[in-house]
């Protein structure tokens, strides 16, 4: 049986964080949010590039393992960016696409209808202001339905 060792250590960060000076937490958060807002245009352009990459690769006649990985990477990037810039639903759709691709593992095993629903949803959710509440609910409901179905099929 392997012996378990408990190792005490000194948390250096603790001392630094508590040193006199610095910022109030409320100010630190406000400043971070203001700094982040400066990146909005850059990040939305990045999201547009990722959506275009997903659309192009999923519509291409020749599908390879590389393009499959590229679509996963682009969706994963959107998962991280969208929610930070007021596109929470787009982020959820991108995460759902990552889940679909991860479960499928390859183009051949990826259900085409589920893929199309996700790709179309990404483009629509990029501009949430152009959607009525009913349209938004229909898109999210459709995505959820597809995600549930593919998860059940994979189990």
């Amino acid at each position, binding site marked *: 049986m392997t012996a378990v060792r*408990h190792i*005490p250590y000194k948390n250096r960060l603790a001392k*630094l964080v508590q*040193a006199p000076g610095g910022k109030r937490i409320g100010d630190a958060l406000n400043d971070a949010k203001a*700094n982040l807002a400066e990146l909005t245009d850059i990040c939305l352009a990045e999201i547009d590039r990722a959506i275009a990459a997903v659309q192009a690769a999923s519509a291409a006649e020749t599908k390879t393992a590389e393009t499959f990985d590229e679509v996963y990477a682009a969706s994963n990037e959107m998962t991280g960016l969208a929610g930070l810039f007021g596109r929470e639903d787009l982020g959820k759709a991108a995460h759902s696409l990552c889940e679909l691709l991860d479960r499928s593992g390859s183009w051949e095993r990826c259900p085409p209808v589920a893929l199309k629903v996700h790709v179309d949803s990404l483009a629509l959710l990029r501009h949430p202001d152009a959607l009525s509440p009913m349209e938004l609910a229909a898109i999210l409901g459709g995505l959820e339905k597809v995600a549930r179905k593919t998860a059940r099929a994979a189990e």
Partner: protein
Amino acid sequence: MDPKSWINLEKAAILLVEPNSTNMQILKQVFAGFGARKPLACATADEAMEIATGQEVNLIVVSDTLGDMDGYEFVRTLRRSDTDQNVFTPVIVVSGHTKRRLVATARDCGANFVVAKPMSPQTLLERILWVAKECRPFVDTGTYLGPDRRFKDEFTDSTPRRRRKDADRPAAQAAETDQFKGAA
């Protein structure tokens, strides 16, 4: 988090490891907002190990996807490395979607936290305060080296705690204590 309490990251040596330039800009802007001065930044695990070998770092924030190895492997390598000064350095791994085959790897890599994107400034600051206060010992089981993965919920609230006044106690607890007093 109490917005009126203070945090000082001015002198903390913070290492950001992120291969995507946009994501790196986001991290830098957020840390600048927190008051961190010139965090160290690099794009690969190799560069990060080189920095960790050469100097003392107080906090590492690393992406789960790096060019040369994934972020989890980087943490595992760091924890088992000879860089005495940074073996126990708090590490926060930032992940997007985690592939099913990597869930156990993420759990076992030895990071203090794995945080899912999108990571708001609020979430990141909460995690930083948490790792700064944390008193979990490190555990070496042979296959795992990192902070003890068992912890009580009471540690997850990073707000400084004060002793509760009697008036703040939940009614049931107060009644129970009063009953005990009565019995005594």
